[in-house]
């Protein structure tokens, strides 16, 4: 009979480390998808997810079972990704002068005729990745959670540990920051 999450957590807390493995197998795909939103290199993504699991193991005693394990784990994941962004904020790229040809073509299409620039193009995905890399850590986190993952402000407050008004303030600032980055991107190319 398959053991439930509660059984597995109780076994891990009782000293059976091997019972942690099914939890790692079950939730790693979601954690990898989350980490890939914030880190580009695969080695960094792996490091982030490993860090999340080590923290989860060490803090499992503090899991109160008031919320599902997945929510608790996602809070830990968001905090770890935010720490990663803060640790790597100095290495943010400073210019858009090194855009790939496909990205430049997409931007040119958008400038000449906005409706012809497809949203599903790979170049558009690359461009938004570049734009997000220019944002400050809180702005990037808020834009990702609020606009890309389409989460509610309350949900973001619960995930980040920020208050609801703070999330709203940071969302306002993040949009302004994003507008500046996009203005810089288009200015560098077309002025």
């Amino acid at each position, binding site marked *: 009979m398959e053991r439930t999450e509660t059984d597995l957590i109780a076994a891990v807390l009782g000293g059976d*480390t091997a019972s942690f493995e099914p939890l790692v197998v079950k939730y790693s795909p979601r954690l990898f998808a989350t980490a890939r939103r914030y880190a580009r290199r695969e080695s960094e993504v792996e490091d982030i*997810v*490993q860090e999340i699991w080590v923290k989860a193991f060490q803090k499992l005693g503090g899991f109160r079972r008031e919320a599902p394990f997945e929510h608790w784990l996602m809070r830990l994941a968001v905090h770890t990704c935010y720490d990663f962004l803060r640790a790597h904020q100095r290495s943010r790229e400073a210019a858009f002068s090194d855009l790939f040809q496909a990205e430049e073509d997409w931007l040119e299409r958008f400038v000449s005729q*906005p409706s012809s620039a497809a949203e599903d193009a790979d170049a558009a*995905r690359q*461009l938004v990745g570049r734009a997000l890399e220019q944002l400050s850590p809180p702005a990037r986190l808020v834009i990702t959670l609020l*606009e890309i993952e389409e989460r509610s402000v309350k949900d973001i407050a619960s995930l980040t540990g920020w208050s609801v008004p703070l999330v709203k303030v940071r969302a306002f600032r993040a949009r302004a920051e994003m507008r500046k980055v996009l203005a810089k991107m288009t200015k560098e190319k077309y002025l």
Partner: protein
Amino acid sequence: MNQDELHRKLIAAARRNPPSERVPLSFEKRVLARIRACPVADYWGLWSDALWRSAASCVAIMLLLGAWWWFNPASGALASAPPASNLSQDLENTVLAAAESEQSLDLSR
């Protein structure tokens, strides 16, 4: 150029292309190996170790003071102190002084 439209298009592009959920091969084995390699902090163990160490040092200090008191000739001055029975009598008189004075007032009425 319409910046808001560009923003909307890029965010829509990001939404349409969610990141992959691919997990590297035997990733869970690596996580378990790392967890096993990490020393787990046993806070109760650390606390009990500290308690035992402090108890041992307290016993050592007690023995040193005892030896000092036993072998120091100046500690003989304590022998000239009033006997313990006198001390207890004095303490009793002091504690019961208030009660005794109340009792004597009642009797005088």
